[in-house]
């Protein structure tokens, strides 16, 4: 180890400086005392044994107060530690130190920034004897150095921020989905601020209700305590929009926060957080969400150096960095959303197309609704329920669950019909209000509120629902029912786009239900009307056996105005009639009913068939019957077999006798409703054992569009029947002449004289 000692280096001789000679020849003692530097010598333990006046003047103490004091005791506390941990070892190890920065403490307690050089004087055994030190005042230099150090640290931090920003930008360029963007932003910003946790929370505004408080959706959260985001949202509440507009905002855990937001403060304290930083995420002035950073006390077990209330963690540069990250995130989110929206639109279009195809298929309402619900749970939601309004209240034709293992829960839902008066249930509210109900967060309080009973509550709890959307099925201004979809915890919440798809589905479904309901109503009405207008069954008559059939058309509301009638006339005769009112609708059926009543009324006078036609034709305008009709009237004496027939534009009856069938040549007169004319009667005898077949044109037009061909088929069928039993004949004729589909009604009356 080399010991460096200051030595007189010689230099120019005194002669050369003329008038300065006496100064340069100054007393060495004076030079020591008044040198422009502090000078002192200490024993190895630091005790000062010699000191010059300059040093004493600097620290404001007389020499006799300084001598005997240990040098380190004149230093600031930080200086003492540095002296012990650095200066002493260095001196011992290398014999000298240079330019050690130390703070002396003056008599008045103020610090004096100094630089010290020191050498250790040793004995022959290398043991320390003395330390000699020179001390220079370095106030200005220290200030300058501090400035340098601060500038250096600022530069390093600035570089780090630039690096962070560069990485954010390059990472974002590769981010395709919203999740990608969120992950980049959360990780990078957390790293940059050495935050304990970070989360990206996006705002979802309901486009149908812009006034509503926006929903907050955490997209990505790392290292954040579970309840913190909720507490923050509760604390921000309706103020959120304002908060977002304020720019980067710092929420410090201090007394004000503790008294104003006790719940949030407690959540922060429990997680040992000292500060939350809220950074707006926006694009083109639109506020998309916030980045939340949670700052803590370092997460270590070290003693806090400063009370947390006073910790000012964020610098302006940090704030600027976060602000920039927020805007970068906003733009990247917009890009990602556009990308996702394109994909989603394609998906949505294909889904709606599939739904439209399904709805267009002819099937009854219950089946259609059920199949649609199946489609919904395969693509859009976890649970789908359709309620339809009916005379019996709300009925549930469809309940579906995405997961077959949980389908039984959905089936349990089917049993719970909603009371129409309920005010809380979103489905009922949607039905009554005629607008979409979107429940973004389902909690137990909500479930208790909407449950019909305890069992219903248990089912809904078991379904683990997180969000519900109810859309009314509306057509022609009426609410016909409601489509309700729900998401469970696995699937996550609905987006605005999901709700729009549900609304489009509901629109289509509403039209289908309306059409089906209208159709159902008309069919039921016509059939009921017709059934009421037709006589239930022919009376039993002496000497005759009779069978009748009435078959409605198989398609739609095309119930016709076909009728038959068998009545015991005053005297021995029996009155027979078949008719066909033009048209296949309710009006036709109603006209037929009226016609039959008027016909019955006419029979009181016992008119001949021809007279019946003439009277009906004459009275037609008075009756205000709105449709024309064909009809065939006959009277038969069962005892003598005398038969009289008159036709108003109606096909002639068939006589079946001894296995031979023929049309009776009853010449038709004008249709009923046509101007009155003379009705021609056919007179003959129906032999014993012979059968008379009266029918409407539906029978002969069912298989063949050509009526003559139809007539031939009828004769052939009657001939091949091989029976004279009216019931057997009816069945045979219908099976031979009609198929599964009938375009027109058929009335058939077969009578056999015994």
């Amino acid at each position: 180890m080399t010991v460096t000692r200051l030595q007189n280096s010689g230099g120019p001789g005194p002669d050369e400086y003329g008038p300065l000679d006496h100064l340069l020849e100054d007393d060495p003692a004076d030079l020591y005392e008044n040198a422009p530097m502090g000078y002192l010598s200490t024993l190895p333990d630091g005790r000062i044994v010699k000191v010059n006046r300059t040093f004493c003047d600097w620290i404001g103490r007389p020499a006799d107060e300084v001598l005997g004091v240990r040098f380190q005791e004149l230093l600031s506390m930080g200086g003492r530690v540095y002296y012990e941990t650095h200066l002493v070892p260095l001196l011992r190890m290398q014999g000298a130190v240079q330019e050690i920065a130390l703070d002396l403490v003056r008599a008045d307690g103020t610090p004096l920034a100094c630089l010290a050089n020191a050498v250790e004087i040793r004995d022959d055994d290398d043991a320390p004897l003395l330390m000699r030190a020179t001390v220079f005042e370095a106030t200005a230099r220290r200030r300058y150095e501090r400035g340098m150090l601060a500038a250096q640290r600022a530069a390093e931090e600035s570089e780090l921020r630039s690096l962070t920003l560069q990485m954010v930008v390059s990472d974002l360029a590769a981010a395709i989905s919203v999740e990608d963007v969120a992950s980049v932003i959360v990780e990078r910003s957390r790293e940059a601020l050495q935050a304990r946790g970070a989360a990206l929370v996006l705002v979802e505004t309901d486009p149908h209700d812009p006034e509503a408080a926006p929903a907050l959706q955490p997209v990505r959260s790392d290292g954040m305590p579970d309840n913190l985001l909720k507490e923050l949202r509760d604390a921000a509440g309706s103020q959120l929009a304002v908060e977002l507009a304020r720019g980067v905002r710092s929420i410090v855990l201090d007394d004000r926060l503790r008294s104003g937001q006790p719940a949030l403060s407690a959540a922060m304290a429990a997680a040992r957080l000292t500060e939350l930083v809220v950074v707006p995420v926006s694009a083109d002035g639109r506020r998309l969400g916030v980045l939340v950073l949670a700052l803590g006390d370092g997460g270590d077990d070290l003693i806090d150096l400063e009370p947390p209330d006073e910790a000012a963690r964020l610098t302006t540069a940090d704030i600027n960095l976060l602000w920039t990250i927020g805007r970068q995130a906003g733009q990247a989110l917009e890009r990602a959303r556009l990308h996702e929206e394109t994909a989603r639109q394609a998906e949505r279009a294909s889904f709606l197309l599939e739904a439209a195809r399904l709805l267009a298929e002819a099937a009854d309402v219950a089946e259609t609704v059920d199949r649609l619900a199946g489609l919904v749970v395969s693509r859009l939601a976890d649970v789908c329920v359709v309620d339809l309004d009916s005379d019996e209240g709300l009925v549930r034709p469809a309940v579906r669950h995405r997961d077959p293992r949980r389908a039984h829960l959905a089936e349990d839902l089917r049993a719970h019909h909603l009371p129409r008066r309920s005010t809380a249930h979103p489905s009922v509210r949607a039905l009554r209000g005629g607008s979409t109900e979107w429940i973004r967060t389902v909690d137990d309080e909500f479930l208790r509120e909407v449950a019909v009973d305890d069992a219903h509550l248990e089912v809904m709890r078991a379904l683990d629902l997180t969000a519900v959307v109810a859309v009314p099925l509306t057509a022609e201004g009426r609410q016909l029912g409601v489509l309700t979809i729900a998401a469970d915890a696995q699937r996550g919440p609905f987006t605005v786009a999901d709700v729009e798809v549900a609304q489009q589905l509901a629109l289509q479904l509403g039209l289908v239900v309306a059409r089906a309901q209208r159709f159902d109503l008309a069919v039921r009405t016509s059939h009921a009307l017709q059934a009421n207008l037709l006589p239930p069954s022919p009376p039993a008559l002496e000497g005759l056996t009779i069978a009748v059939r009435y078959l409605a058309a198989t398609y739609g509301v095309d119930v016709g105005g076909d009728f038959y009638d068998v009545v015991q006339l005053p005297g021995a005769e029996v009155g027979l009639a078949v008719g066909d009112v033009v048209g296949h609708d309710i009006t036709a059926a109603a006209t037929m009913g009226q016609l039959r009543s008027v016909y019955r009324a006419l029979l009181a006078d016992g008119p001949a068939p021809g007279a019946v036609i003439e009277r009906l034709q004459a009275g037609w305008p008075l009756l205000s019957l709105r449709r024309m009709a064909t009809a065939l009237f006959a009277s038969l004496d069962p005892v003598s077999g005398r038969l009289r027939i008159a036709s108003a534009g109606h096909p002639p009856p068939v006589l079946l006798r001894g296995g031979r069938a023929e049309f009776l040549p009853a010449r038709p007169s004008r249709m009923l409703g046509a101007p009155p004319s003379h009705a021609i009667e056919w007179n003959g005898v129906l032999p014993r054992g012979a059968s008379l077949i009266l029918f409407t044109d539906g029978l002969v037009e069912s298989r063949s569009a050509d009526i003559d061909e139809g007539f031939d088929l009828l004769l052939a069928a009657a001939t091949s029947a091989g029976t004279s039993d009216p019931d057997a004949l009816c069945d045979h004729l219908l099976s031979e002449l009609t198929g599964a589909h009938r375009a027109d009604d058929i009335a058939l009356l077969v009578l056999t004289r015994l």
Partner: protein
Amino acid sequence: MMFAHGFGCDQEMWRLVVPAFETDHRIVLFDHVGAGNSDLGAYDHATYNSLHGYAADVVEIVRTLGLTDVVFVGHSVSAMIGVLALQAAPELFGGLVMIGPSPRYVDDGDYVGGFSRTDIVGLLDALDANHLGWSAQMAPVIMGTPDRPELTAELTNSFCRTDPDITRHFARVTFLSDNRADLAGVRVPTLVLQCSEDVIAPEAVGRYVHEHIPGSVFTQLAATGHCPHLSAPEETAAAIRAFLPG
């Protein structure tokens, strides 16, 4: 015997004491990560955010070298690192020598550690004030470039130099730790060596350590300051020798 240096310099600190034990002990000297000739690249803020990180290194060294019955001699903060190492692997150690220990430097209620929070801030300032000599160019020199001795020769104060950020962090961890509760768990023969007039670890603190380690021996040294192994190596070595069995 394993010697661990404290906050400030490196294993060179022991060179005046070690010869006294070389003849009858295997000697292990090391630099804490971040100090002396250690690999600064291995320094990780999170790992060394508590003294446990340093204690884990001690245990790893002992295990790697296959040592048992180790007498751990720790100076200053390393005395407490030794306590934590013993806690982690008690089976490896046979004795503990604590030179100028302090389980907590910052005063806390009735406990007097000798420092206020303001003092610690002042210390960090003092470290900052002595940082300017450091630069990236010097780093390789300090980390050891035997092929360029001329550089080393030019340097002053080089022996206590290391990366200023690491020094600052080590200072924080050293002076802001509180390991008082760990003392009671020491189960090996322990010697507390207390210096005179030690501003960093005052006598009251040394007594506190002694009282809280069951069966420990307290030896008051005449040596002043915080580094008796430098200022009074003979006295220090003798005190340790007296403590060692046989």
